[in-house]
């Protein structure tokens, strides 16, 4: 409690609503049981109000203050009262600085000097009196002008403050409206989503059938990891699929050679050739080069087998037999 009562920064942060819920609760429990802490908090709050009215709060602090203190009529009333007090004190302070024109015969130093002047020749005395009056008059006029300027400044500040308060009120009202509109929109979107979910639940089986019947080509990607016979790539072909695209990712060094391939699909058992295509050219995807061959599904079905292999041959230069570029194993089953 001692630490909190002396920690003015924490109190100011509490007043500007910058503390966590836990920290706020600690301070609230503390001041409820400690009258001097409560007075300290309220004294700091009054100083904060004063700093705001005088324009002494920095940009961020001022914005935080306005967010907290312009939100309620009670707080705005306190700000107006503080402004009035500062204005009154300013008048009071300036009034004390105006010189006292009341001359007293009874022993005031100024009165003695004037009596001395009066003993001089009349013309000189009149002239000097006139000069003194002129100086006093000018001084009063200057002081009056200064007070009027000060009053104008204070009035301007008051107008600015009231405008800020109105703007903050409008902004707050606008944000409340926007928040309500967003809440209504969220509720409406939730309702639409709920309706859509209900409808899509009814449509889903039909949509799936349509996709299956329209999808006549299946795709099987064959990558390096599946080149081992013990771990072949697998695909289950559904009824209605007419073609199987076999996609082979080429290594970069292979792709760098500008050549076309002969693709041969065989059964693993007996190595019976079931499909051949010459002049297969590689394509460039986003990340790597690849070869795609489209094999009729009937070719696989007719064999009655599951295990197949795709061999890519590239024409060798100066030799009779083509280079065997790659062999990839895969399985095809039928649903």
């Amino acid at each position: 409690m001692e630490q909190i009562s002396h920690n003015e920064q924490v109190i100011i942060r509490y007043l500007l609503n910058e503390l966590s819920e836990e920290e706020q609760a600690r301070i609230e429990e503390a001041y409820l049981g400690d009258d001097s802490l409560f007075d300290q908090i309220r004294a700091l709050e009054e100083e904060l109000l004063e700093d705001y009215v005088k324009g002494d709060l920095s940009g961020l602090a001022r914005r935080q203050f306005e967010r907290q203190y312009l939100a309620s009529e009670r707080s705005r009333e306190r700000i107006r009262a503080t402004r009035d007090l500062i204005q009154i004190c300013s008048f009071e302070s300036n009034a004390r600085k105006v010189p006292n024109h009341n001359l007293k015969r009874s022993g005031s130093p100024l009165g003695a000097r004037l009596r001395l002047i009066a003993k001089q020749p009349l013309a000189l005395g009149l002239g000097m009196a006139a000069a003194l009056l002129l100086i006093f008059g000018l001084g009063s006029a200057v002081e009056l002008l200064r007070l009027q300027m000060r009053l104008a400044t204070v009035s301007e500040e008051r107008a600015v403050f009231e405008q800020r308060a109105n703007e903050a009120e409008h902004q707050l009202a606008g944000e409340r409206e926007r928040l309500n509109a967003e809440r209504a929109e969220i509720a409406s979107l939730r309702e639409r989503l709920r309706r859509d979910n209900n409808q899509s639940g009814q449509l889903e089986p039909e949509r799936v059938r349509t996709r299956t019947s329209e999808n006549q080509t299946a795709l099987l990607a064959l990558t390096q990891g599946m080149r081992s016979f013990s771990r072949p790539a697998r695909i289950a072909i559904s009824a209605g699929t007419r073609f199987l695209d076999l996609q082979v990712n080429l290594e970069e060094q292979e792709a760098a050679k500008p050549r076309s391939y002969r693709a041969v699909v065989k059964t693993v058992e007996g190595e019976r050739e079931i499909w051949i295509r010459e002049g297969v050219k590689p394509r460039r995807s986003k990340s790597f080069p690849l070869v795609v061959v489209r094999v009729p599904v009937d070719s696989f079905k007719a064999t009655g087998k599951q295990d197949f292999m795709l061999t890519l041959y590239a024409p060798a230069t100066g030799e009779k037999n083509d280079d065997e570029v790659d062999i990839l194993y895969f399985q095809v089953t039928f649903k």
Partner: protein
Amino acid sequence: MRTWDLSQEAFFQLLERLDVNPTLAGAEYEKLRSKLIFFFDRKGCPIPNELCDETINRVAQKIGEGCEIPDLLKFSLGVARLVLLEYWNDPKKDWDPLDEQLAVPVIDREDFEEQRFECMKKCLQSLSSEDRDLIVKNCSLDKNGKLEMAATLGLTMNALRLRVFRIRARLRECCEKCIRARKEVASRSRAL
């Protein structure tokens, strides 16, 4: 929001819990009230007085029912938090009539501000010259100036701030009395 009228017996029981000395109990009650009003005001409630009264009503009700409350102030704060939550959940319910009563008609705003200004000038003059000087100087000084003034007076900054705060609290009370008196005069002259 539930309301429960504070019975005289429950109120006396509450005062007794605040302090066994009846003279001091009243002061303690006022302190509790001002702290709760401050709490609700800091939380942004537009009707802190009403929520404070609701809180005190509920605390008194619990005392009246014979509930064991080891720490009355902590309990009051807990009730205040609950009242605050209920208010934010449903700000309009049961509070509309009070809101209408409390609203200051726009047409009286300028008159009110003029009256407050005049009352404040008058109340400032009613302070002792020492207190008035302190308030006037404090208003015109910046932070460094206040530090110097505190040093001149042999006070810490905190002590100076508290002294100014207490004088301004008396000024505020004087101002409120003055405004009430002027309103009464104005309403009597309208009646005539």
